[in-house]
């Protein structure tokens, strides 16, 4: 009969099948975990993200070129919002829907810890280690094993409004340390260049974690000790938070910082209402867009300032491509990952997203053009990144730390006290 009758039968079969399944609610729907290594034609499903790093058009074009090279592998891409990416991976994992997924740098501990990602350590080419930007590798690793290849590197960069700095009579080189930044901010405030020279994304959100991680790194702190227990409530972790609190008390940091996210910080900076901020690289292009910015040509990217012990890491915001452990065609999936993350492919689209390969940064496409200053700064920064805690229950842990930092910044709880309480809860969560 015609097609509609089939689909109608299929429709009818749904409630019936589910009804039958309900008889045995304890049994999981059987998973097909047979691996097909015949090397025959493969159909892969790949999960990407909308509206950040490589655009949907870029990814589709990449996949088309991949298909030309590997006619026997067909890739069906799915694009979802960043917010939906994690949940989609978790929900689809048992069904084995996706072969290749895009992952954020805070997820390997959770996803690999739950055996969702394929361990690709042994598939790594020895030469990669030296050429991949060191900082980005942390975002695809867990307990010394690799669970993917970095694809879109990102560091929360240090930016300053060079024109304001000059007006305050401050040397740009003095911004190389956080002490220097505080002095510069005092000068900017004293000379009334700007009311609150510093602005941060310190709202109760992941953005706060990135900034705190960066300062914790600069002040030589650690999130976790070698036994995997909380360590941010001693030493550098406390000093970083006390430093944050002081800049607020002194009026150097905008009081609204505790309510802002990255996008808000971008707006404040582009309005010329602050001189110094941390943000992802996308702020640079928008600050130079006359339609959105009053500070065209004034924003400068630089290496993150250093703390007292000379460390100046930036928060890692890289993303990587992983093969799902439930993929039925892991070899074909790995071919796709290596193609997409490969230097040649990345260089072709380097105008939109930076490559993860150090050697690629010598290419004229990156050394020239309006983005060149940012590229140079970010390449250097990507060698020195700080990871947020690599624990399977990352979200829960992050929530606790955010709450502690906020309670110090907003209600004035002493830093050591707030962090100690959070550390106890974090240990409880990790201990589960």
């Amino acid at each position: 009969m015609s097609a509609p009758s089939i689909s109608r039968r299929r429709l009818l079969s749904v409630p019936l099948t589910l009804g039958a399944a309900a008889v045995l609610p304890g049994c999981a729907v059987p998973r097909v975990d047979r691996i097909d290594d015949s090397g025959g034609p493969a159909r892969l499903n790949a999960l990407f993200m909308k509206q950040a790093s490589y655009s949907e058009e870029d990814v589709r074009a990449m996949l088309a070129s991949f298909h030309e090279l590997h006619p026997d592998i067909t890739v069906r891409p799915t694009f979802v919002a960043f917010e939906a990416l994690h949940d989609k991976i978790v929900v689809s994992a048992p069904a084995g829907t996706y072969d290749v997924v895009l992952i954020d740098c805070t997820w390997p501990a959770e996803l690999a810890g739950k055996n969702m990602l394929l361990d690709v350590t042994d598939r790594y080419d020895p030469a990669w280690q030296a050429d991949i930007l060191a900082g980005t590798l942390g975002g695809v690793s867990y307990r010394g094993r690799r669970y993917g290849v970095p694809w879109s590197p990102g560091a929360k960069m240090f930016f300053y409004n060079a024109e304001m700095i000059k007006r305050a009579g401050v040397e740009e080189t003095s911004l190389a340390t956080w002490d220097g930044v505080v002095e510069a901010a005092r000068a900017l405030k004293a000379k009334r260049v700007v009311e609150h020279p510093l602005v941060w994304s310190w709202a109760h959100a992941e953005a706060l974690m990135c900034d705190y991680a960066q300062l914790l790194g600069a002040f030589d702190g650690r999130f976790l000790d070698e036994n995997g227990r909380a360590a941010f409530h001693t030493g550098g972790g406390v000093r970083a938070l006390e430093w944050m609190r002081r800049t607020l008390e002194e009026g150097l940091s905008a009081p609204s910082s505790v309510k802002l996210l990255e996008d808000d910080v971008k707006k404040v900076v582009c309005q010329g209402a602050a001189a110094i901020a941390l943000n992802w690289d996308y702020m640079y292009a928008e600050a130079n867009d006359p339609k959105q910015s009053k500070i065209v040509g004034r924003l400068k990217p630089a290496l993150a300032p250093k703390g007292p012990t000379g460390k100046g890491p930036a928060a890692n915001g890289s993303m990587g491509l992983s093969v799902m452990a439930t993929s039925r065609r892991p070899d074909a999936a790995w071919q796709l990952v290596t193609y997409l993350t490969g230097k040649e492919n990345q260089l072709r689209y380097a105008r939109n997203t930076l490559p993860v390969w150090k050697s690629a940064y010598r290419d004229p496409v990156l050394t020239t053009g309006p983005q060149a200053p940012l590229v140079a700064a970010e390449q250097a920064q990507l060698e020195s990144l700080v990871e947020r805690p690599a624990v399977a229950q990352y979200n829960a842990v992050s929530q606790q730390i955010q709450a502690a930092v906020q309670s110090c910044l907003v209600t004035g709880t002493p830093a050591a006290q707030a962090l100690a309480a959070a550390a106890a809860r974090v240990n409880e969560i990790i201990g589960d």
Partner: protein
Amino acid sequence: MTAQGRNERQWPLALALLAPSLIVVLGVVLYPMGRTLVLSFLDATSALQDAFDFVGLDNYTELLSDSGFWATVRRTAVFTVFSTVVELGVGMLLAQFLNQRIRGQWFFRSLVVLAWALPTIVGANMWRWILHPEYGALNGLLTQAGLLDTYQDWIGGPQQALFVVALVDAWKTTPLVAILLLASMQTIGDDVYEAAAMDGAGPVRRFLSITVPMLKPAIAIVLVLRTIEAFKVFDIIYIITRGGPDSGTTTMAFYTYLQAFSNQQFSIGSAAAYLTVLFIFVLSLVYLRMLRTETKGLV
């Protein structure tokens, strides 16, 4: 004929009438409900594993002895009571207004439907923007009107934020409540009001002594539905506050989400879901008992 005899006779017809909805509903949800119930007695911490240890009621006792969970329950109760009271109060007045015979009534009704039809995703994002501490419209408006000296962070404190998301939920569903009540009001004959008016009852009196009692079944339905929905509210919180600040807006639905999706504690999430159902069920029974005379047989 005895009552028993009538029951026997009507049974086949009732089954025939109910069969389609039973298939449509149970066909889809029975399996997942059973699976979730089973999970709540296991120790499932991964989506990929098949076999888990049976832990009996451990997940439930763990939740019930966790002060964090009870804080979640308390927040859910505050959210539910606050949003339901606002919805019912405003919805009743709105329905009464929409039931008036005035010129251009279609316009007001359309406005209400428009507010209701605006997707939650859009409404929630709109509120996030309105309430924004830096460039939110509310701050701008209130400072310009001289009602506010400095910009407020409307969702800055945990308690404040809970009331704000409850208000946004009420904003979203008040039109629905009004329309439900309006539909019910229209079943009240004009003659009832006319008779009361002739007896000298004023508009307020007529509203209290005719409209409200006649609407009791509808109010019962609204109360139960809104309670259930309020317990399940997820998207508004997901968009506006993500459960923060300081877990201030983590209601039971969001708690379930955090456990099951962010932490992959599927068993704890499942147990939390069934406890949610238990709470809603008890609450619904209380409501229905309270409004019993008019709704006999609803449960």
